[in-house]
C-alpha cells in the first residue's frame, strides 16, 4: 500500500467520522519497502490538490521521513524544483507500507496491515 493511499484513509467507525483525530491514521510498528517507479509529473500534479497536506506532513514525520514544508507546493513548484518532485514521488508513490498497524487517534482502534493490505473490517459492536 503506497503512502499516498494512507492520505485517503480514515477510521472506518462511523462515530469517528466527525472527529478530526480520526484522520490521518497513525502508523505503528510500520515496516516499509521501496519500489522503483518512474517519475510521473502529470500524476503528481493531478494528485496534489487531492492531498490533505497537513495529514501528509504528520504521516511523513511518523514514518521517519524528513519534515515537509508547511505549505504544499504548487504545480509550478513541482515542474521547476526537481528535488521537491523527487522527494514527493519517493514518499507518495515509491514507499509502501508492508506490515504494521494503522491506529485511529480518536477511538484507538488498530487496523492491521499484512503483506501491504490493510484490513478495515469492523466487529459488529462498531458497525
Amino acid at each position, binding site marked *: 500500500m503506497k503512502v499516498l493511499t494512507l492520505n485517503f484513509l480514515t477510521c472506518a467507525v462511523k462515530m469517528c467520522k466527525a472527529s478530526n483525530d480520526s484522520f490521518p491514521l497513525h502508523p505503528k510498528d510500520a515496516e516499509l519497502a521501496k519500489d522503483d517507479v518512474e517519475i510521473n509529473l502529470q500524476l503528481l500534479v493531478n494528485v496534489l490538490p487531492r492531498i490533505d497536506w497537513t495529514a501528509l506532513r504528520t504521516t511523513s514525520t511518523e514514518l521517519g521521513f524528513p519534515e515537509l514544508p508547511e505549505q504544499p507546493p504548487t504545480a509550478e513548484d513541482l515542474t521547476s524544483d526537481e528535488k521537491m518532485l523527487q522527494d514527493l514521488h519517493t514518499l507518495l508513490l515509491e514507499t509502501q507500507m508492508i506490515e504494521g498497524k494503522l491506529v485511529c487517534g480518536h477511538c484507538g482502534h488498530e487496523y492491521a496491515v499484512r*503483506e*501491504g493490505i490493510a484490513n*478495515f473490517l469492523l466487529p459488529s459492536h462498531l458497525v
Partner: protein
Amino acid sequence: MDYLIRFSQSHETFRLPEIEALALIEGVELEVISYSLDSPFCVVHLPSEDAAKRLIRRSILVMSIHELWGSGVTLDDVHAAVRSTTPHLWPRYLSCSFKFTLDSYQGSRAADDKITIINSFAYLGFAGLIVMRRPDEEFTLFEDWEFNSTPLGIPDPKCYFFGRYLATGARDLPKKLDLKKRRYISTTSMDAELALVTANLALAAPGKLMYDPFVGTGSFPIACAQFGALTFGSDIDGRSIRGDDRKKTLRGNFDQYGLLSGLGGTFTADLTNSPIRRNALGGDGDGVKGRLFDGIVCDPPYGVREGLRVLGVRDPEKSPWAIPKGIEMYKQPDFIPPRKPYSFLAMLDDILQFSAQTLVDNGRLSFWMPTANDEDQEMPVPMHPYLELVSVCTQVFNKWSRRLITYRRIPDAQVDQDAFKSREESAKHPGKTVDELNPFRRAYFNKFET
C-alpha cells in the same frame, strides 16, 4: 473530412459510447454522420487524419479507421463519388507501393469478381508497386451485405464504402490481458475485453486515479492501469486480494503484465463502512478539494454466484452471543467479523452516494448491474441528483442481461438541491433474508417466471 470506422460486430450497444468516451479522452471533436447497431460501418466527421488515428488508438471495439473516399448503394455510385470529391488526393499516391482489399461483411465474392471490382478503380492511375505485405498505402472497398445473403442468392450488397486505411484500434489488448492466461482469477473475474471497454468508458488515462470498491482479483484496476491510470481497490473479502500469498495474488497479476507502477493500494473494507475519506454532500466545493477519484469502476456482487453481504449481525435476537463474542475476540489477528445479507438496491444506492462524494467534477462512475429481460421484471437504472447518466450498454444473456451504466459527476452548482434533499429523506429498504433483499436474485432462481 469524413472517416469510416470499421467496428467489430459484437457488443453493439457498447461501441458508440466507447468512441464518444475516447473522443473526450483525446480531445477530438467528433460528429457521427451515420451509425446503426446492425452494421459494423460508421461514418464520422473529424478535424484531421491525426485526430482519426488518436481517436481509435485505444479502442477495444474498433477494428480500423479509414479516410472515406466515397460510398453508395451501387458500385457506380461509389465511383461517381470518388471521381467527384477526391481527384485532388490521387497525385499523392501515384508512386507509393499499395494494395487493394475487399472487406465483405456477411457476404463473399468469387476471386474473379474481386479482381474485376478492384480493376474498376484503374482510373485512379496509381503506378507504384503492388505489394501484398506492408504496402505504403492500403485501399479497401467495404461491402455491407444482407444477413444470409449467400443462401438467399442476393447478388449485390446493400451498400459500399471505399477508403484509405489509416490505423487499427487496440484489439490486441484483450489478448494481452486474456483471463485464460492470467495467473490468478476467480469465478466472477470480468473478461478482459469488457473490462477494457469499462476502463475506456470511465475515461481511465495517464495521471488519473481510479477506484474499484469490489476489486476481487483486480480485473478492472488492471484494465485501467493498462491505460496508464493509478488504481486503488478494496473488497470485503480480503482473501480475494491476497490469493495464495505467493504468485497467485492481485499484486501478482499486475506484476504479470508489468503494470505494478499502476497499483496504488488495496485494502479489505466494506462499502457501507468505508474508510475512504470523504465530505458530506450539499456544500459548494471547488470541484476537486476533498474528492479523490477521477473514476470509479466496479462489478458489484449480484447475489447469485457470490453472496451480497455487509458487516453486521443478521438477527441479533437469534444470536445474542455474536456481539459480546466480537467485543471479546476482535483484537485477535485471525478474527473474522460477522456479516449479514444486504439489499441489492440499497447497495446500488450506496455506490451512487459514495461516487457522488468521492468523484471530482466530470469524473465518471461505470458499473455493471443485472436485470431480467422480461419487461415486467426489469430493474430501473438507479439515479442520483449529483450524477448525470452518460450511457447504458447492454450485454444480453438468455433470460437476463447485464448493463454497463456510466454516469458523470456534475459540478455542485448544477445539482438540483431539492431533489437531493428528498433523496436523503427517503426511507431505507426493509427486509432480512437474501431473497427479500434482492429482487434480481429472487427472479433468477424463479427462472424469471412471474
